[in-house]
């Protein structure tokens, strides 16, 4: 990460932007969380309406952390109307809009065409765009990933779907050596505007091989970008941004988040690939998370608020490169960091993030960074064991309490 700073510092001639300007210039990230109704199916806990209040800057105890829906209906995102949508539908909407906009965008993967996608992300696209643009491939990850990269070298913009992220391990050579490196080794001649996407993460007793978190394996590949979506709003926005980007982007979805419901704007929007999302501003501690763990964190946040803490929750979204600007500003404010991730402990995203924060913001830290990650074990099948592999809200609460002592 430091090297990126060196590079950008050396090349940039523009003035730095102060934090105030940052907050003003990205109103969306502040406003978007006014949308209220989330059906969170992933948690065993029976919460079915989570509300994130903006403006929790007060230090006083909050009696009732769960606000009613009434006060959030007035403010929504830029448009007053909007449409309610599930996360997989939001991904499909983004994909469809981009395919309509640019004829070079095509999808390839197993069962994406006639079957409609194993998670219905590409449902209805094959009849609309044809079999060549929504291509059903045989079960040959290595080869069809390579094919997508070759097509991208020729100017197309393919979206390669791994039915489960874990299957993309078979295509690791193509992703690492060809996708990530061709722009560099060709001296800039070829660009590889692919999007590699698929669901990963620990699901509901899917077994060890279908519950993998590949963020940690891909993160050191130079030349690629990684983003993780967590809500329908950012899923659609990140999908569109990833397709429009000229760099190879790996979009991590989560198996358990596909049925999240949210109201998203009717008009077109594209999100920023390298920006983190401020989920809940706070003062006491910065909690950095992404994907499904965001919901565990928000659940823990409710408990924490009841106990009198004021956590700042940031969904980092961009796993490579890290949005050190947002993260740094937060650390400068709170001086304490907790990372909650679903990745493995060893060599995971949290490990890299810890190193990056230590390198860049060490002076601002009042306590060592605490990183909660999944256990370094293959994901067991038994439900109880599986629960213990990932980070649960009580652990988050305990960690914050300890951190804030």
């Amino acid at each position: 990460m430091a090297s990126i700073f060196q590079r950008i510092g050396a090349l940039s001639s523009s003035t730095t932007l102060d934090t105030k300007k940052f907050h003003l210039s990205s109103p969306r990230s502040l406003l978007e969380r006014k949308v209220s109704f989330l059906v969170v199916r992933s948690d065993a806990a029976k919460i079915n309406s989570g509300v994130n209040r903006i403006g929790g800057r007060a230090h006083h105890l909050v009696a009732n952390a769960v606000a009613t829906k009434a006060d959030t209906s007035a403010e929504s995102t830029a448009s007053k109307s909007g449409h309610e949508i599930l996360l997989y539908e939001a991904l499909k909407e983004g994909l469809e809009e981009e395919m309509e906009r640019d004829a070079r965008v095509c999808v390839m993967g197993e069962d994406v065409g006639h079957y409609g996608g194993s998670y219905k992300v590409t449902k209805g696209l094959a009849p609309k765009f044809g079999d060549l643009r929504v291509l059903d491939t045989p079960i040959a990850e290595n080869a069809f990933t390579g094919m997508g990269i070759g097509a991208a070298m020729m100017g197309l913009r393919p979206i390669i779907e791994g039915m489960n992220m874990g299957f993309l391990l078979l295509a690791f050579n193509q992703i690492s050596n060809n996708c990530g490196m061709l722009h560099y080794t060709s001296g800039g001649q070829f660009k590889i505007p692919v999007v590699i996407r698929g669901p990963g993460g620990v699901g509901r007793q899917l077994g060890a091989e279908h519950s993998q978190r590949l963020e940690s394996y891909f993160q050191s590949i130079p030349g690629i970008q990684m983003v993780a979506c967590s809500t329908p709003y950012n899923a659609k926005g990140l999908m569109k941004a990833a397709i429009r980007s000229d760099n190879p982007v790996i979009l991590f979805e989560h198996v358990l988040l596909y049925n999240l419901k949210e109201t998203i704007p009717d008009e077109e929007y594209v999100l920023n690939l390298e920006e983190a999302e401020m989920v809940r501003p706070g003062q006491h501690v910065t909690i950095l998370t992404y994907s499904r763990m965001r919901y565990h964190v928000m659940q823990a946040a409710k408990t924490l608020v009841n106990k009198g803490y004021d956590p700042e929750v940031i969904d980092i979204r961009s796993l490579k490169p890290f949005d050190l600007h947002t993260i740094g500003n937060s650390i400068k404010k709170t001086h304490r960091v907790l990372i909650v991730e679903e990745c493995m402990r060893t060599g995971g995203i949290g490990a890299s993030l810890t190193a990056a924060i230590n390198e860049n913001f060490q002076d601002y830290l009042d306590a060592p960074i605490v990183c909660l990650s999944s256990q370094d074990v293959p994901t067991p099948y038994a439900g109880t064991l599986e629960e213990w592999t990932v980070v649960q809200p009580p652990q988050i609460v305990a960690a914050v309490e300890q951190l804030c002592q």
Partner: protein
Amino acid sequence: MALARRSSNLLKPLSTASSSSFLHRRPFSTDDTTTITVETSVPFTGHNCEPPSRSVDTTPKELMSFFTDMALMRRMEIAADSLYKSKLIRGFCHLYDGQEAVCIGMEAAITKKDCIITAYRDHCIFLGRGGTLLESFAELMGRQAGCSRGKGGSMHFYKKDACFFGGHGIVGAQVPLGCGLAFAQKYRKEDHVTFAMYGDGAANQGQLFEALNMAALWDLPAILVCENNHYGMGTAEWRAAKSPAYYKRGDYVPGLKVDGMDAFAVKQACKFAKEHALKNGPIILEMDTYRYHGHSMSDPGSTYRTRDEISGVRQERDPIERLRKLILAHDLATEKELKDIEKQARKEVDEAIAQAKESPMPDESELFTNVYRKGFGVESFGADRKELRATLP
């Protein structure tokens, strides 16, 4: 030998030929298009297809250009050998001498809009696609004037405007990429084909069969060319492959076995393959060829094969010698003229090397360029908010 048998035909004088020297007195040097028919040394062997005829039409101009180009390529590889030994080229350097006929014959049959992708033995193919000697040598030596700005090296030569897609280090990984190129050509309804080249060692890779299956399934205009030089680094083909008939490996995909040391056989086969691929989908070409050098510069090349074998092939099947005999038999040039062409090639190579040596090493800032493409598609800021990126396209 095929050549001896047909010598009586070959020695028939051409209508416009005279016994004058090549450069000044012979009009063909610029525009003679008299057709000469050459017979390939061995017939083609087909698998699931009717092999093309052994008679190949060519012109004196083409014959001479084949010779000149091959001489240049041969000289370039020999020069790269000595540059490597004097430590100006480091790392891996895989030389193509002996196999020149494959790329020369292929280029003669296709256009610059047809795509070629190959593995790491790519210097001569780059040259065939229109790359310059300077770009080659500069890239080998890691200088700025190189085709990949010094950041790729021997195994990563690319030339986008000539549809040359490299230059890949991992054995076999370029074949799915090649099918992707063919996919894009089909997507865009272009009338062009892709030649995805690989070696006999890579022929045992699984991704090859995966890619072949998909290419056949969707009728992609992909031509898989196996440059069978009989050795996968140190392992002879009979020790690595149960069935070394690589052209038959496609099963339902037709295949053709070609004498890869005969530029005209290669030309005929590639022409045939291009027509086939545009109509019927993929086809496999197996080029029976040979490399004189070892697998790379760190391999002496004699621990797994005898020197007698190498010199035997050089005497009997060398592509340049074959051409030389053909040219002399057709009386298109004298011995001296051909030697002059080779001397000219040497001179060009030496000049290019000298020029390449003068090119500077890449600047330190180049370490970080071309990792990503700028412009992420939204009005956004860089990771540290110091650099404003491009706005929506």
